[in-house]
């Protein structure tokens, strides 16, 4: 039963949207859209699972005093504070989670504006510094492939800024051609490959060949 029931559920959950796509029958599409509604709820619980996982991982870190454990304390404190105001706000407490109707900030919004936003912005902005340093050290025309990549990158970087057009109008035109043709062809290849991979993996899960998600031990 531990094996058959999840396999049957997976088969049904996987097959219904596929059938609904090809069979334009009202009863079939009703079942499929009902499944979509359940999926939204399941996705919500997946988020909750993530929170539980973060709490477990970090409490273990603090208990064992492993390296960097004070950061775990900060993370859990942030989770608790934002979580409390967010949860309360979702049920109408503290005026909600967005700004109030009079334009003043709710506690959740205040924390978002003054803690979460600058912290996330800082993390992303740091990339510019690391990329500049890394490109100086590592972006070398060591062989033919690296040279092609380097030339394409320089043209795109130069064509994306007004200075490129000031030098010659060919920079933005070549940039757009690189993006719309060679880049697009490569992206399509990657997407088709990834799509075929995802479809074959989905089929393996639906028909029960791939069972690792069940979390069963060997021989079960």
């Amino acid at each position: 039963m531990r094996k058959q029931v999840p396999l049957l559920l997976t088969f049904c959950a996987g097959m219904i949207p596929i059938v609904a796509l090809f069979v334009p029958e009202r009863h079939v599409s009703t079942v499929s859209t009902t499944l979509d509604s359940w999926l939204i709820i399941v996705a919500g619980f997946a988020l909750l699972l993530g929170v539980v996982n973060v709490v477990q991982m970090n409490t273990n870190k603090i208990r064992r005093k492993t390296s960097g454990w004070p950061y775990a304390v900060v993370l859990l404190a942030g989770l608790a504070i934002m979580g409390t105001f967010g949860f309360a706000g979702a049920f109408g407490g503290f005026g909600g989670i967005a700004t109030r109707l009079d334009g003043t900030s709710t506690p959740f919004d205040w924390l978002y504006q003054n803690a979460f936003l600058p912290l996330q912005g800082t993390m992303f902005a740091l990339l510019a510094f690391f990329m500049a340093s890394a490109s100086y050290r590592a972006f070398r025309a060591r062989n033919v492939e690296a040279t092609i990549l380097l030339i394409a990158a320089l043209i795109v970087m130069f064509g994306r800024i007004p200075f490129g057009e000031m030098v010659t109008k060919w920079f933005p035109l070549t940039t757009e051609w690189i993006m719309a043709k060679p880049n697009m062809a490569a992206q399509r290849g990657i997407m088709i490959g990834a799509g075929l991979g995802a479809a074959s993996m989905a089929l393996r899960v639906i028909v029960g060949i791939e069972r690792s998600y069940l979390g069963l031990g060997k021989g079960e």
Partner: protein
Amino acid sequence: MNLERIMQIDRRIVYLFVAAGTILPIVFVIGLPVSITPPVQMAFDRMEDLDPGDVIMVSFDYGPSSAPENAPMADAALRHCFSKGIRVIVIALYPLGGLSEAVNELNKVVAEFPDLEYGVDYVNLGYKDGAQAAMRKMNENIHEVFPTDVRGTPISEIPLMREVRTYADLELCFSLATGIIGEWWANLVNAQFGLPVIVGPTAVSAPKYYAYLEAKQMAGLLGGLKGASEYERLVLDKYPDLERVYATPGLYTATKGMDVQSIVHLIMIAFILFGNVVYFTGKRRPRKAA
């Protein structure tokens, strides 16, 4: 000169150049010219084809990490809609701050158009988890996905939403996206349900959207800050009244951001070229006998 030492330049010197290239254009605004690329022109033209009173969906699928790129797109798109009389349904599908970004940008732009009425000209339906599932379900019934708006008002009591139940009642979706959600609008909502989609992704993820654009699965593309600055330019050229908004001191715009990005790009190009010159000079120099 010792080439090895130049190659091993202290990374803090590189950081210093990047910091100077970032801070100086913010203090001394250059106002570099903006040229228009075809993907942004397509997006603008598609929006211009809409009639006053048409309804579009603007989906906030980004968080604060990419807000400097996505927020000016959102502002320009909303200003375009409100200047043209297009009605807007705002949603958020990105969990890490999508809703807060939607509230911030909507509040900011709506304040610039005092005649707008909430629930009639625009509405904010808030955040919904499970992006793909929500997108699929909205084709069947938007009211079931968002039973209330962000203020908790039942959706049936919102005049604008009485006219809109499914994608068929919308003219277009404009997704401001970081990550994969923008892709889902193209390869799920457009491909399966036929709703025209314009995506404004971050510059780093813009290249993959060209595949959808060339396949006509997208009606336009605003790639990163550059795309946002182009859209701003097009909106300003078409609606000169908005100059009063964009001239507001301290207002962050994509055009101002492009000054910074242009200078930092130049610095990076210079470092890359310099690094390669040093590399090849070192290769050609005969090695000393051991």
